[in-house]
């Protein structure tokens, strides 16, 4: 099943939310992790409604609304009406951490005493998709996937199923936040190290990846609209340890399933983080199987996190639409216009592998 990206918006550690300034000036991290650049929310959320919302929810609503607005403009020839999506599907590996931490801290402080319910209510993973439904008055399918490095992929798969079942438009998101506590835990677990001085221009070292965050949303449609940015030709996941050769076998089978030759791939986007060990497989695949293809990165812009592939997909769609690479995205080779497709390969924790093929 294929689907068209008729709108997409990302709040990320880079300037990606405002179309006009899209990746014009790269942000250099000033703290231990890559924090999202948040917009002024007033335009997107009534302050009466936003007063209880944690930032992950605000980021998601703003990005979701903007994606729908774009798609609405696309289907209604210049209009800005948001067409009601037939499903709202979100992938978030860790969910609403800020509220979870807040409620946990209150339990500790009060010794299970008198507690404010708001943080508890908003700590559930489906708060994001639920709040969007509430705001849009959307009574349809509302799912939230939380499978680590597959969280966004499972959401995308569900979106494609929905479209296969006849739903005309799906709102899809990949969202995770980072908090100081999360970063501390990740650091102690040996999963992340400080970002300062390493990003956004990728430098390979023995250091663990820098952690990031973001809210990336898509309005997917069954039918191509005049302004559609790109088409998702397919998505494939596999789980477990895999050598470069095994990954390549999966890539070949996936491309064949999408009806495409390996040689017809115009550009390869992969989840390089700067960690030598993690990146080795990407380099091997690029050198051995796609030696003359331009190589693109995205995690040097958004950081490593479980739903970072959503940002990769978003970036690839914008590149196809605008027919250009942005500063910091081209890791090797030359991206010559016209290019018609981008193959995205992401790996998380060495065992969550995903492939997505995007065409213009």
């Amino acid at each position, binding site marked *: 099943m294929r689907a068209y990206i008729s709108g997409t918006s990302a709040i990320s550690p880079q300037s990606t939310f405002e179309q006009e300034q899209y990746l014009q000036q790269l942000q250099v991290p000033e703290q231990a992790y890559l924090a999202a650049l948040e917009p002024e929310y007033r335009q997107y959320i009534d*302050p*009466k409604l936003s*007063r209880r919302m944690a930032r992950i929810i605000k980021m998601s609503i703003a990005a979701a609304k903007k994606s729908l607005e774009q798609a609405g403009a696309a289907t209604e020839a210049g209009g800005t009406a948001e067409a009601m999506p037939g499903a709202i599907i979100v992938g978030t590996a860790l969910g609403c951490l800020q509220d979870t931490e807040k409620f946990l801290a209150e339990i500790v402080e009060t010794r299970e005493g*008198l*507690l*404010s*319910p*708001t943080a508890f*209510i908003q700590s559930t993973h489906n708060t994001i998709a639920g709040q969007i439904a509430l705001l849009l008055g959307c009574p349809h399918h509302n799912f939230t996937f939380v499978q680590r490095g597959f969280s966004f992929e499972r959401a995308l798969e569900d979106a494609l199923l929905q479209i296969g079942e006849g739903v005309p438009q799906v709102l899809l998101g990949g969202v995770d936040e980072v908090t100081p506590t999360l970063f501390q835990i990740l650091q102690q677990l040996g999963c992340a190290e400080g970002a300062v001085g390493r990003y956004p221009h990728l430098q390979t070292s023995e250091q663990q990846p820098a952690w990031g965050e973001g809210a990336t949303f898509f309005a997917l449609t069954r039918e191509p609209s005049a302004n559609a940015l790109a088409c998702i030709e397919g998505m494939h996941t596999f789980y477990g340890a895999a050598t470069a050769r095994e990954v390549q076998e999966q890539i070949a089978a996936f491309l064949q399933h999408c009806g495409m030759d390996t040689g017809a791939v115009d550009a390869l986007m992969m989840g390089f983080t700067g960690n030598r060990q993690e990146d080795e497989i990407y380099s091997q695949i690029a050198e051995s199987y796609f030696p003359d293809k331009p190589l693109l990165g995205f995690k040097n812009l958004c950081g490593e996190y479980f739903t970072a592939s959503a940002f990769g997909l978003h970036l690839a769609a914008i590149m196809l639409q605008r027919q250009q690479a942005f500063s910091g995205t081209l890791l090797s080779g030359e991206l010559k216009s016209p290019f018609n497709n981008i193959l995205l390969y992401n790996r998380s924790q060495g065992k969550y592998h995903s492939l997505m093929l995007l065409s213009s």
Partner: protein
Amino acid sequence: MSELTEKLKQDIIEHLNLEDLQPQDISDNEPLFGGAVGLDSIDALELIVLLEKNYGIRIDNPEEGRRVFQSVGSMASYIEQNRK
């Protein structure tokens, strides 16, 4: 009493994060729920927490809360009556 109502308004704005409101925007007898202030059932629970934390007054039954939280004025009288 007016000192208490002023303090209550301040507390409510702060506790419920009503960043667009000033104490003078809420009159003493204005309904807190359903009117311009527009509080909902989650706020009612938060007000129970506020009363206990800031005023040491406990409301066990949310139904009783509904009556007490009609307005800032009704909250203030309840506090006056029940303060130890």
